[in-house]
């Protein structure tokens, strides 16, 4: 719902983006031996950040709390697995549009059925559809069942036989994912600033009034749901490319819940908040895990502390800080 980002905050976010984008440069010096591992780790976090950001369009803007969002993430990943010949590479020009088209269609259908409900019922209906997706891939023999499926060769990005980007290179892939994240952010920002986005945000605040003004909230919600689902499919496609492996857990409610936590923790309705949430949650996980076997304990304590101390998430705190400074003498 935050359409206006304070100038200082914008600068801070830009600096953070530069730090992230230059990670391959400084990371090699700081972490030396662990660098390759961390590069993959950060790439993985950016994919989750993209997923969290797409969910924020639903949770933060339209007020639709989905607990089945990971289904589209997993579906996007599975589409790559299904589009790849067993020991050969799929072409990105075929696999990616196919994955996006299928996730868009799936989210259109699920959205059409789910948006009739609201509140906790919406949470549960999306959970039900998400679990159905999970069990579909878990129980059917379509793509390896509960074992998942391996993508042996990464998709090629080529034009006229010339390789444009080598997705096998961890460095190139890092920038591909960063590009996808930034582009999606820009797309969602523009979308929310457009008349369409205004109506979606207004639905999140007061749906009856939007209806009273002569709009059809269902249509707007459905379009928002489909866009969010398709972006989640993109994130899933990237995740499958990175790990070369998909399994049913990608679609499950644990994954959906995990991403929802990122959105709330980071600060919903801000788009950049969920990205911060993804980084905080994943880096804290990594840190706590390296310190203690019982890493869930500090993790749970951290989440509870953030709820109690920061009612609007991390982004809320940043917005407050930067706004106060602007208003100050």
């Amino acid at each position, binding site marked *: 719902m935050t359409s206006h980002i304070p100038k200082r905050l914008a600068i801070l976010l830009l600096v953070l983006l530069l730090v992230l984008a230059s990670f391959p440069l400084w990371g090699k010096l700081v972490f030396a031996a662990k660098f390759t591992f961390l590069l993959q780790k950060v790439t993985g976090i950016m994919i989750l950040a993209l997923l969290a950001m797409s969910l924020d369009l639903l949770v933060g803007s339209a007020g639709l709390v989905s607990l089945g969002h990971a289904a589209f993430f997993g579906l996007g990943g599975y589409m790559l697995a299904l589009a790849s010949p067993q020991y050969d590479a799929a072409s990105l020009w075929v696999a990616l549009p196919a994955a996006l088209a299928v996730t868009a269609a799936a989210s259109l259908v699920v959205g059409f059925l789910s948006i009739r409900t609201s509140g906790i019922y919406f949470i549960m209906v999306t959970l039900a559809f998400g679990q159905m997706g999970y069990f579909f891939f878990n129980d059917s023999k379509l793509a390896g069942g509960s074992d998942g499926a391996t993508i042996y060769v990464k998709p090629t990005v080529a034009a006229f036989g010339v390789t444009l980007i080598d997705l096998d290179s961890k460095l190139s892939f890092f920038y591909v994912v960063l590009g996808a994240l930034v582009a999606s952010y820009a797309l969602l920002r523009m979308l929310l600033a457009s008349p369409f986005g205004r109506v979606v945000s207004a639905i999140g605040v007061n749906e009856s009034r939007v209806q009273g003004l002569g709009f059809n909230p269902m249509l707007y919600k459905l379009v928002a749901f489909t866009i969010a689902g398709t972006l989640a499919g993109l994130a899933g496609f990237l995740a499958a490319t990175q790990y070369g492996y998909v399994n049913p857990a990608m679609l499950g409610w644990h994954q959906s819940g995990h991403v929802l936590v990122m959105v709330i923790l980071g600060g919903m309705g801000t788009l950049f908040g969920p990205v911060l949430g993804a980084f905080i949650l994943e880096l804290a996980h990594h840190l706590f895990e390296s310190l203690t076997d019982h890493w869930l304990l500090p993790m749970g304590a951290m989440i509870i502390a953030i*709820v109690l101390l920061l009612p609007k998430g991390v982004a809320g705190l940043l917005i407050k800080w930067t706004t106060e400074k602007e208003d100050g003498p």
Partner: protein
Amino acid sequence: MDSWFFLIQVLNGIQYGLLLFLVASGLTLIFGIMGIINLAHGAFYMLGAYLAYWLAGMTGSLIAAVLLSLPIAALVGYVIEALLVRTLYRRDHLDQVLLTYGLILIFNEAQRILWGNDVHGVAMPTALAWSVKLTETLSYPAYRLLLSAVCAVLAVAMYLVIAKTRFGMWVRAGASNRDMVAALGINVKLLFGVVFAVGAALAGLAGAISTPISSVAPGMGDSVLILCFVVVVIGGVGSVKGAFFGAILIGLADTFGKVFVPDFASFTVYGIMAAVLLWKPKGLFA
């Protein structure tokens, strides 16, 4: 398939449904009265099971263990309500989701620290380890019948308390209009604390008495939690009657799903929920 086999499945389904009802009734009351989405409710189920396993090992009697674990689960519930949940009544539902999600992590880790990662089993009390003979080859374990009976008695008791007593009147009033109840001078803080503790105790009891027929394992609270949310939503949030019928429905669907379509057993439960909500978007009894 003969009718005896069918009967056994019906009994299993009802027994599972009644067990789910014990957990789901607390969940629906806590949501209906206090407006709290408590993701940590499944953790009380797990707590009850682990306490029963631990205390049964110490005392040598499952019945003593179950009776001892009840007040402990209630106390843990009351303390959590007083320390953490109380701060969330005026906050957004999503803050509650996040905080209780943090609680799940802490509960799961505490379980790992206290009792480790192993899967445990609890022996059936010898006095109850017999079966009711149905035919030459088929029999039904007495413990499952007793379990159903205990749950059924509790369900009736819960109905009587809610429908006939003053406390039940507050609970019903709280579920339909919280602010009005507070305005009428009823100690809402205490009411909420008691409801939360009773909900925790019921979930803990369900976990404790189910130990002889299912294993005590890490993560057992999570799967029960999701099923109970399904039950609560099918019945209509806040409705104990709805939770009862929802629980029986899901218990039967899950049991029969495992028999007839083993590959898609879990699918049936979610399929039923989706169908119910598309038919009645606010549950059956809302």
